[in-house]
């Protein structure tokens, strides 16, 4: 089984990298880019039957820093 983990900065946490990407898009001539937030996508290859709680624990213990980040898990 696969788990897809999306790690994103919490609302309110400044994202200077996202802002730089936004400026770069504007410099390339793309209009209407009103905001950019950069995050991480992590794909886990897991043994079948790995419990969801275990995946959440992986996120809390390592994949995300919950001081500044939220995470979302999709199991496929």
């Amino acid at each position, binding site marked *: 089984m696969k788990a897809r983990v999306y790690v994103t900065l919490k609302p309110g946490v400044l994202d*200077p*990298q996202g802002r730089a990407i936004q400026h770069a898009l504007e410099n390339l001539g793309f209009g209407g880019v009103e905001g950019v937030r950069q995050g991480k996508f992590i794909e886990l290859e897991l043994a079948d039957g790995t419990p969801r709680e275990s995946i959440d624990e992986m996120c809390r213990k390592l*994949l995300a820093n919950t001081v500044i980040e939220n995470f979302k898990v999709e199991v496929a």
Partner: protein
Amino acid sequence: MKSAVIVFPGSNCDRDLAVAIRDVTGTAPTMVWHRETALPEGVDLIALPGGFSYGDYLRSGAMSARSPVMAEVIAAAARGVAVLGVCNGFQVLTEAGLLPGALMRNAGLDFVCRDVKLTVANSQTMFSSRYDAGATITIPVAHHDGNYFADAETLDRLEGEGRVVFRYAEPVNGSARDIAGVVNAQGNVLGLMPHPERLIEAEQGGTDGRRMFEGLLAALG
């Protein structure tokens, strides 16, 4: 004073830190590889050095914070053993949950590598007792991820409890409330982005870093 310097894969200030500790205290620290599962018996000071452990993979300090030796460092900190984290060491301490907050990419996105002026916000800790409260000192920084972040409530608590030990006296990296170094509630764990170990002798351009180690020697014998 018995000390240990933890060495992670990608640490690059471990020897500078060891030399500073040896020169000031007269005793060389034990270098402890991150895979060790025990610290030297009776250690008084554990120092986590600067560098780019694990190439800053995932987040700066994230992988090192889960190294085997960190369980021992966390246990020692709980027993009151002094722990000093410099730069990457500070990042490891926040990732390990020994200090609050997080160190994010510098607001200007640049790697900042220069001497900066700091204000001593609290001279009542074992790390800062040889500085005068409110004094301006000069210590070099060299980091990409030194932008200190914590929620407003945490920042208020840190300030209210006198746990902000050093502040930037000039804009450096966008840190919340200009925080350059914080201590834990018990007062035995300090993390700071600037590198005191780089200013130990006049030949290095100044000695403002030396007093941190002198303070530790006075407190820990």
